[in-house]
């Protein structure tokens, strides 16, 4: 068992450390999706799921058009990944275990749990999600010890974070005609102005999260 794990290790760690150029390519496509969401009156979040250098799922928020508040970009993209697997008769678990999610905003608590349930190992994201974030901002579903809820995943955060925040700000300046009156919390601290802090999370066995230089 030990030996087997060792022989798999180098490949896996390469895979878990995508090159800056790869991140740039995929994230710029994710930003295009977010812009599309903004233009359609949806929360500007866009994402891509990349397997073997191929986009096998993409999504943007579509809550308003489906009247289903769970239709976040990640959930939409995961559906496409599953369709892709079904069409090619591939095992979703095997594919997901080799798939990276590129998303403009930190996944919310629900999406982080969904990513765990499908065994996605790595998420690259733009800005923090101070209101709903499930990868450290509100809760840390990505690395918490919840053994019956799939597998933990690693995050690379902070790519074009300011830009992602700007898009969210633009959206929240507009009124959402469907939303009920928001409940205002006095003790809620406003998100830091696009703070670019890059944290690398290594799952539950590694308690420390280290701060590395921002990507440029």
């Amino acid at each position, binding site marked *: 068992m030990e030996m087997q794990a060792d022989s798999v290790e180098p490949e896996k760690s390469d895979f878990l450390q995508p090159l800056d150029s790869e991140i740039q390519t995929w994230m710029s496509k994710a930003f295009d999706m977010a812009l599309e969401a903004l233009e359609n009156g949806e929360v500007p979040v866009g994402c891509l799921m990349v397997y073997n250098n191929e986009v096998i799922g993409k999504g943007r928020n579509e809550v308003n*058009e*489906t*009247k*289903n*508040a*769970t*239709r976040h970009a990640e*959930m939409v993209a*995961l*559906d496409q990944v*599953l369709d892709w697997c079904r069409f090619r008769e591939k095992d*979703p678990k095997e594919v997901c275990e080799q798939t990276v999610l590129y998303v403009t905003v930190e996944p*919310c*608590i*629900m999406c*982080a*749990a*969904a990513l765990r*349930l*499908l065994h996605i190992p790595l998420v690259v994201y733009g800005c923090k999600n101070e*209101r*709903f974030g*499930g990868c450290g901002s*509100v*809760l840390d*579903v990505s690395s*918490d010890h*919840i*053994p*019956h*809820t799939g597998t933990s995943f690693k995050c690379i955060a902070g790519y074009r974070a300011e830009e992602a925040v700007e898009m969210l700000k633009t959206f929240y300046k507009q009124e959402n005609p*469907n*939303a*009920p009156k*928001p*409940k205002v*919390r006095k*003790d*809620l601290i406003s998100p830091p102005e696009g703070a670019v802090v890059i944290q690398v999370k290594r799952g539950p066995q590694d308690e420390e999260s280290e701060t590395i230089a921002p990507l440029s």
Partner: protein
Amino acid sequence: MEPQAKRRKEMDKYDTWDVLPVLSDEQSRDTELLPAYAAPIIEKRQTSRLVKELSLIYPLPGLQHIKRVRACKDKSTPHPLEVIVCLARDVQVIDRKGVTLTDLLRSQSFDSSGLGEPFLVKIPANPPLTRPQFEKASKHWPTSFHEDKQVTSALRGQLFTADQKAKMQEYMAAAVEAAKSGGEMGMDAVGAVIVDPESEQIVAVGHDCKRGSHPLHHAVMVCIDLVACGQGGGTYNYEKYPACRFSSSESFRNACYAKETGQPYICTGYDLYVTREPCVMCAMALVHSRINRVFSGAPSADGALGTKYKIHCQKYLNHNFEVFNGVMLNACEALFKK
């Protein structure tokens, strides 16, 4: 004779389960205590001056619930009142037992006439939120208490009347039925029902479908999408699963949503009945969907409404809701023992 016997049997069924609120950590925690110095007020007429001056020197931030002065209930004490001087952590003293007023009040401007020598007490660190917490806290030092009547009565198991419990049983029974239908189709036996409590109508019924077409189709996610279907939205098709259904009759909608916008908004105002405590994905999906209350049957290992997380009362989320568990506990537990 027969109907009566039947009724008694029905009543017995409700008595076998209790509805228990899942309180926040703040509501359910033990009373934490802080060491503080108090001193007797020997001259009663000095009380208001002493309190005023003490609270200037030691304002006790974050302890607004503490009543600064307490009456000595024991009539044999030589002084009628006692006052909190400061928290033990506010001052540095070498010998806590032999501490004097001068140790505590180095300020020149303070006139300590009327005040006796200080002694150590323990005071509650947090405002009591429930009656059990209040009763415990008051044993140490008097506190103010803004009682949440609903929580108190819920803790006593008196929140719901027999009629309401009967309704609950009806809805949870529908969830159990759905769970069984799903189970027969090879799914995990988990069922969920969304109810509009105002019209007392079932809006959607769903069961776990994750062993079918989609690994994320937990019963709650299915129900949320079925509600969306009923509102003219929705993403998936559940034709393969006859037990998964929704209500969308016009009369029903008009009856319920003439209120503000005339439009239903996701699960706002609705109750969920689910046979097993939701996972973190489903629990957060319920936050996003603005569910009103959740009635849950059996707990689950990674459950997010009480067991591993308390998503429903998580600070900093934009929507909180009430959760009660234990509804038809035995029937719900039996579902996943099979």
